[in-house]
């Protein structure tokens, strides 16, 4: 009897000790009282719920968005680009993630607090993946011409129409415009690397400041392929070819199955190895479950090896999964004629 009573007491104690855990904190947030002191706080000013976000099949292969400003030098291994910021310039905010139309804000820069000039300035380094551009443009020159055509004449006056220039021993297009109402000037310079339009945009009221930035661009290091019309990879990086993932180049293809979200565009860049297998996948913007479904499918794809001078080489191309807003623009001759 005593033993039974003892057992009952022990059971009661255990039950009582478990009661709070069994109740837990209601999933709606713990009633109207404050949460227990051990509750952990979420960090502020952090994007935790990222939605569709860039990712890749490995963490070693360089990505366009992987560039960084270190010691006031912008370096980007994917583009083979090194650009030392001008004196008294500094990085401002990190850019947004790549868009689902293949647009990257690689870096944003501004005049530093130490800057003593009369008017401050800011700058952008961007890239547009020519595989996914919404504009009907096949290369960097056509894209800049498109920008010029879309320039709102109500706001801006063209100071220098798009013209080919040499910078750091590579061909660029330069396009200058001004907003007369504010006297703000924009200098835009673009070239093409790995089938991306890579663009520098500098803005200030002070044109001398902008001229000095252009001068400093000459010290920039670029890959050999960088060219306004024909920056299409090759050499140490894969050749890039728009719409290479066509039936005539594919031996085996398995379509991914999206169980949930189906209507957002999911742009994907892949590198196909010399044997025709998908070697690397870069999701410019995908939900994790979409990336998983696409990875599972692409791992099964088999391409015909791409041959240059009769020898297989690696090739980089883009595929739009999900809900593409429209049919992709046809590849332009200039972009594929290398």
């Amino acid at each position: 009897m005593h033993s039974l009573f003892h057992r009952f007491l022990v059971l009661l104690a255990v039950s009582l000790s478990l009661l709070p855990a069994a109740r837990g904190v209601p999933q709606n947030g713990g009633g109207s009282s404050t949460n227990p002191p051990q509750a952990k706080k979420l960090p502020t000013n952090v994007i935790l719920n990222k939605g569709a976000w860039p990712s890749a099949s490995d963490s070693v292969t360089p990505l366009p968005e992987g560039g960084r400003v270190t010691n006031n030098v912008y370096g980007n291994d994917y583009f083979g680009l090194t650009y030392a910021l001008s004196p008294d310039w500094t990085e401002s905010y990190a850019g947004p993630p790549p868009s689902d139309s293949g647009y990257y804000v690689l870096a944003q820069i501004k005049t530093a607090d130490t800057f003593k000039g009369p008017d401050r300035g800011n700058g952008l380094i961007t890239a547009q993946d020519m595989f996914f551009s919404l504009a009907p443009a096949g290369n960097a020159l056509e894209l800049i011409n498109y920008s010029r055509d879309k320039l709102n004449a109500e706001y801006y006056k063209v100071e220098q129409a798009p013209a080919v220039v040499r910078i750091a021993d590579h061909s660029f297009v330069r396009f200058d415009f001004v907003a007369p109402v504010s006297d703000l000037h924009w200098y835009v310079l673009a070239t093409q690397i790995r089938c991306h339009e890579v663009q520098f945009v500098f803005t200030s009221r002070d044109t001398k400041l902008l001229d000095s930035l252009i001068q400093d661009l000459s010290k920039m290091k670029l890959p050999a392929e960088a060219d306004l019309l024909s920056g299409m990879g090759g050499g140490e990086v894969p050749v890039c070819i728009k719409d290479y993932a066509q039936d005539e180049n594919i031996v085996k293809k398995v379509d991914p199955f999206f169980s949930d979200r189906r209507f957002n565009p999911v742009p994907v860049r892949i590198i196909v190895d010399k044997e025709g297998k998908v070697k690397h996948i870069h999701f410019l913007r995908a939900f994790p479950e979409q990336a998983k479904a696409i990875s599972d499918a692409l791992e099964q794809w088999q391409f015909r090896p791409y041959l240059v001078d009769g020898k297989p080489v690696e090739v980089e191309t883009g595929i739009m999964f999900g809900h593409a807003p429209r049919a992709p623009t046809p590849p332009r001759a200039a972009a594929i004629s290398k």
Partner: protein
Amino acid sequence: MKTFRFASGLTLAALLFFPGMVFAQTSPDGVGGSASGGTPLPSGAAGDSGIAGVATPSSVPATCSTTPCDPGVRGGLINGQVGATATVPCALASVLGTNTCGQASQTPNPALDFFNNGLGRFQIVQTVDTLPNTGLGPRFNFNQCSACHSQPTIGGTGIANNPEFTAITKGIVSGADNTIPTFITVHGPTREARFPYFFDADGSPDPNKPNGGVEDLFTVSGLAGASSCSLQQPGFAGALATNDIIFRIPTPVFGAGLVENLDESTLIAVQTAEVGNAFGVSGTFNHNGNDGTIARFGWKAQNKSMLLFSGEAYNVEMGISNELFTQDRPLPGEDQLGTGLPAGCLNLSKTGYPEDVTNFTVTANSDQSAQNAEVPGDIVLFAEFMRLLAPPIPAPGVAGSSAAASIARGQTQFGTVGCATCHTMSIDSTQVSNVTSSLSNAAVGAFSDFEIHDMGVLLADNVSQGTAGGDQFRTAPLWGLGQRIFFLHDGRATDLLVVIKDHASNGSEGSTAEANFEALTPSQKQDVLNFLRSL
């Protein structure tokens, strides 16, 4: 059955007695006075906004003479519309026909009957079980659409005197069973709350368990008709203590019918025209999960249509089931991780479900279209009312005045620095409408591209809706901005300079435009602010 009879009377009274109240506060140029270039416009014409219940800055801060400042809520005509009052917004011109906004109907007009019926229902105070307007709760944010959508008139956004703060003192909820959450303040923004993440057992938010659903502020517990229902409010204190709470303010819906009637091809053309901009902007669209078409309403463009917007809000904000959302709504925790609402909290209206339905029988009325307007359920009439609301009209100032010159310069500055890349000033044009001719082939001067954009860490709310992620928001339409009090999705700001500043942060598409704005001279900045308050 819900009826409109009581509200009809209120509306009629408003039409008859108050049409002149705003005219008395109207300045000739609609901007409240003159201003020289680059100087702030005076705020509301009479120190107040001239809008019922709305306090506005009574004087321009002294520093405004040398430093740019937000002129404050614009006085003058409500929504820039002759005849609009604080309780009577204007319908589209083709809906008014030969009638005049703010005056009782002179000629029969079926569309106007539906508009007025919807306006009336928008103002009905809902109850738990007092016929005919039953169904409130068991969880809800407020008991009347118009209480939250009232600035500068019905159909708008939150007013200065937050109605949610008065929920206990006015007997809308029981003070024995509810408290006013600390983030609801007397002159703060009208808000709904969401917990981005579910909580673990120790009260910690779990980033691996996304939530994001609305956590209604109040419960019906303790109200007449709800004796069987004992519910606690969500754990707001714990959520605040762990940073697991975000807020949203009501979106104004003036001109919503125009937005609803934009074809996909038109929106895509706007998106394509943005390519190659010099501002680091590249947005995308949110899509309706059912048919994949572009959604466009709500802070994250998560809703496809006015009807969906109405049905969801009726269910989520007021707890009223309807023909789109047919059950009473539990909290996300009760629903997805719990057992749903307690049995004692169901069917409190004693009408069965859905609580808002089509009215199969209505009272005979010699005015056939007025009788017809009684037939649809509330959500259909809400949607019709919002669809037929006229868009706000800007107040650009008297031609030739210094105020007009400043506003015009500001509009151009707004475009040049990059704001108009997303805040597209006007979209041409709507589809042919099968509703009313004002919605056909019309320009939509909403100052939005209706895309969702990454807005960076400073504005991120970590709530995903549809395909919009935690930092993506629809470009907020700016039409009517001049007479709004609270800004950004959570109402955190009342000063446009703060709003502009908050567009810049790590990960934001707005950073470069903000930097360009900062590059303007003080006088040029003031022009932009004057322009914005003219909208």
